């Protein structure tokens, strides 16, 4: 089966054609870099996304957070539910783990700081 994709790895947005036979990607064309090939291979088997959001701190401020690696696209809303159940106490620094293993081994980490 053939898939036409737009790569989301960078702002270039390459138009990629990927072909899958069974569960195997047999060809990827149109990408300008190795990241595009990897994106297309994942996208036709199991699309993955980094989730970014915010968590409210005990003092009322909002802390930007992100998953430290992509999670399954189908899991985005369950990840969001877990994110919205988090609470943090300042100070928090960039990179600090807010929730370990929020989905398939990805951690939720601080993507901003509250001092």
């Amino acid at each position, binding site marked *: 089966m053939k898939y036409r994709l737009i790569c*989301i790895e960078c702002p270039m*947005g390459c138009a990629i054609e990927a072909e899958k036979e069974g569960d195997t990607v047999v060809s990827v064309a149109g990408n300008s870099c190795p990241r595009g090939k990897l994106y297309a291979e994942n996208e036709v088997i199991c699309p993955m996304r980094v989730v*970014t959001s915010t968590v409210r701190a005990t003092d009322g401020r909002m802390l930007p957070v992100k998953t430290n690696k992509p999670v399954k696209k189908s899991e985005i809303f369950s990840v969001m539910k877990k994110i919205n159940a988090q609470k943090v106490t300042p100070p928090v620094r960039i990179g600090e783990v807010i929730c370990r293993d929020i989905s398939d081994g990805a951690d939720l980490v601080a993507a901003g700081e509250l001092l």
Partner: protein
Amino acid sequence: MIKKNYDLIVIGGGPAGLAAALSAYDNGVTDILILEREESAGGILKQCIHNGFGLTRFKESMTGPEYAARFIDEVQKRNIFIATGTTALSLTADKAVTAISAEEGVFTVTGKAVVLAMGCRERSKGALNIPGTRPAGIFSAGTAQKFVNIKGYLPGKEVVILGSGDIGLIMARRMTLEGAKVHAVCEIMPYSSGLKRNIVQCLDDFGIPLYLNHTITKIEGKERVTGVVISRVDENKKPVPGTEKHICCDTVLFSVGLIPENELSKKAGVEISPRTKGAVVYQSRETSVPGIFACGNVLQVHDLVDFVSEESELAGKCAAELIRNGAREKRSVNVLNGEHISYVCPQRLDLNREERVKLFFRVGNTFSDCKIVVESGGVRLIEKKKKIAVPGEMETVSLSKETLARIKGDVTVRLEV
């Protein structure tokens, strides 16, 4: 305590101002004041919690606050003073800045050079002439972004977005993630002005429909928005009768373009381009007023912060040169936008400068299999084939030292289709 005089005054502590200050410092000018009207530096990046920043510059995908933090850390390491909570009120051609803050009251500081880095603001609903009353529930996309990401409030549950600029697309996803239902994104043009990747990851991922050639023709509701009517538009952007479609919603977001914020520049007599709405500049980013430079979104609205940083470093470096060595005589030619080009920046070249020049420009429509041509005095300096060119994505061409040497008069950038 703020002094009366500085070598360099940078107006704005967002990505442009931070990069310009750092670059000036690293090029030998250390007596710098940054004026920032908000309580902390970082500018619009503070509320851009999505990722995708820094891919060009740092080869990694960062969130807005992470990207800003890299620059704020560097500024702090160098002890460059950022006067936060301080709003610049006016600027003169003699580079005197009058500003106000709670600590200092109204005060005036003078610089040997000034870098304008005030960024841009959103076009408002008022600029669009959409009929209807004034119910609650109408926001610019950036305001909604601030509510959600900084304040932690969801401004509505049932949303229609007008305009498919990147902020609108990003907010479509953001509000969806937080539990709102985004019914439609309407775009009056036949193409989106946002990045393709944002169409995919912000709309397609969540099944949010994008209506091209559509606009909102009515907003309903007395106290609160209760619905909108959207209509298809013809090639003259006039609504086509009979194509009306009603959508129930409680919130309308506008993402209809950004305007460089140049009130201060105009007070100083800086020449403004009617096309970019930013200053007319040389490749050094010096404006028509000697010693006043402009960079980032106050100069031209960029697609990527990475390019803002790059441009601002150039402005900071050139401002430092001017402060250290004094003004040099310029040999000036214009850079003109030819066929199918909506603007080019810089608009002037000083041929006494030899370093490589990057011309930034946007095309006026969507084109495929076209050719970018740069010419001067009937001579083709550069030809560059493009598979696809769209107005939403800034294009660049580089002029090498050798190419610059071949320039005989005004330079024209045009698109052959």
